[in-house]
């Protein structure tokens, strides 16, 4: 979706605000929501792509106004209700409903290493052939899906060159909506800065994006 999160190329966002000796978390609650978010994913009710999409679905004004971890608080509170782990009444009251069942945590201190080290699915699956070859010229398709996509607006319709085949990955546009993994090749595609931005860019510079087969067409 063409949301506020798709920031590449937007202008007038101000200078980069740098903080010297920045702590990992600025307050204890940031660490707690970080850890809660990771631990709750172990229930596998949603996946990483759905997690990313949940942030994209926030109203744009909220997305831009909130701090990074504040967005995470809103996301997790919404997800546990949406996916049926907690009722709306329980979220509002902060108490489990009387007589409700008690689960056994999926993600424990003993099993956490296994979860944290678990790989993002990918493979060199030879049964899924690549659609494109190294050094082939390709065009990023001009798509404007209303759901999740990892093809940023700024690259759509632009032409680049395949410089690396990363192997096979799940397709986020379908996986985020639980509509199948649609495993396919992901490539590093090199776009010249001038092809993306015109004369304001330096003719030497380039931007590389990692793009799935379904985002590309021969150029």
């Amino acid at each position, binding site marked *: 979706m063409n949301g506020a999160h798709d*920031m*590449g190329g937007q202008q007038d966002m101000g*200078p980069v605000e740098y903080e010297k000796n920045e702590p990992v978390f600025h307050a204890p609650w940031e660490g*707690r929501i970080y850890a809660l978010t990771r631990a709750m994913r172990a229930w596998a009710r949603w996946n990483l792509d759905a997690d990313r999409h949940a942030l994209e679905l926030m109203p744009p004004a909220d997305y831009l106004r909130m701090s990074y971890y504040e967005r995470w608080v809103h996301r997790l509170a919404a997800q546990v209700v949406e996916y049926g782990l907690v009722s709306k009444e329980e979220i509002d009251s902060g108490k489990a409903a009387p007589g409700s069942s008690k689960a056994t945590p999926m993600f*424990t201190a003993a099993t956490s290493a296994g979860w944290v080290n678990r790989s993002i699915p990918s493979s060199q699956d030879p049964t899924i052939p690549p659609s494109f070859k190294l050094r082939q010229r390709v065009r990023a398709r001009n798509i404007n899906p209303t759901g999740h996509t990892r093809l940023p607006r700024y690259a759509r319709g632009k032409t680049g060159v395949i410089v690396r085949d990363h192997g096979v990955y799940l397709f986020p546009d379908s996986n985020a909506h639980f509509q199948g993994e649609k495993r396919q090749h992901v490539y590093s595609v090199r776009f010249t800065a001038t092809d993306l931005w015109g004369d304001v860019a330096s003719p030497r510079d380039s931007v590389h994006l990692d793009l799935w087969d379904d985002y590309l067409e021969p150029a």
Partner: protein
Amino acid sequence: MEEDRDHKVLPSDLALRVKSLESLLVEKGLVDPAALDALIDTMEHKVGPRNGARVVARAWVDPAYKKRLLENAPAAIAELGYTSGQGEHTLVVENGPTVHNLVVCTLCSCYPWPVLGLPPVWYKSAPYRSRAVIDPRGILREFGLQLPEDVEVRVWDSTAELRYLVLPERPAGTGTMTEEQLAALVTRDAMVGVVKVALPASRDHP
């Protein structure tokens, strides 16, 4: 009192909401508080840019290691004992006299956790995410780095599950330094590509 970085929502409200959410999820048996503590401890104390700095320093002193790092970064990084989520598909991109690499995630906040830890606020912020792809040289100037026109700025937008670590150039005048001394020179910012690695006397952030 916690610092209110954005001056928009009282941090105490957020602290209370997270506390309430956590106690509910614990009460329902959905999370284990000890596991949360372990996750936070890992991010605060075990992973972070010191890991990446050791990888870079090793690559500077050991050409065979550098070759392995550029060919298969996850395996080479694991040789130093660093493995954990979000780094399975790390790629190392090398700076040189004619190429300067810069890493961004325009769509969210993708970052190579095992070698750099969690990203700083500026990396996740709208100003950096919006401008790194359209005006990378402007971003670099804000960080104090003015690159000649004949150097290619190569931006890596982390749109998939690949995670990028910049291998900075080893500064001149470090020929006699040990691997450990070299690692101490390597900053998080240099491994994202917004600055170069400098000698201590000349290192200064804007």
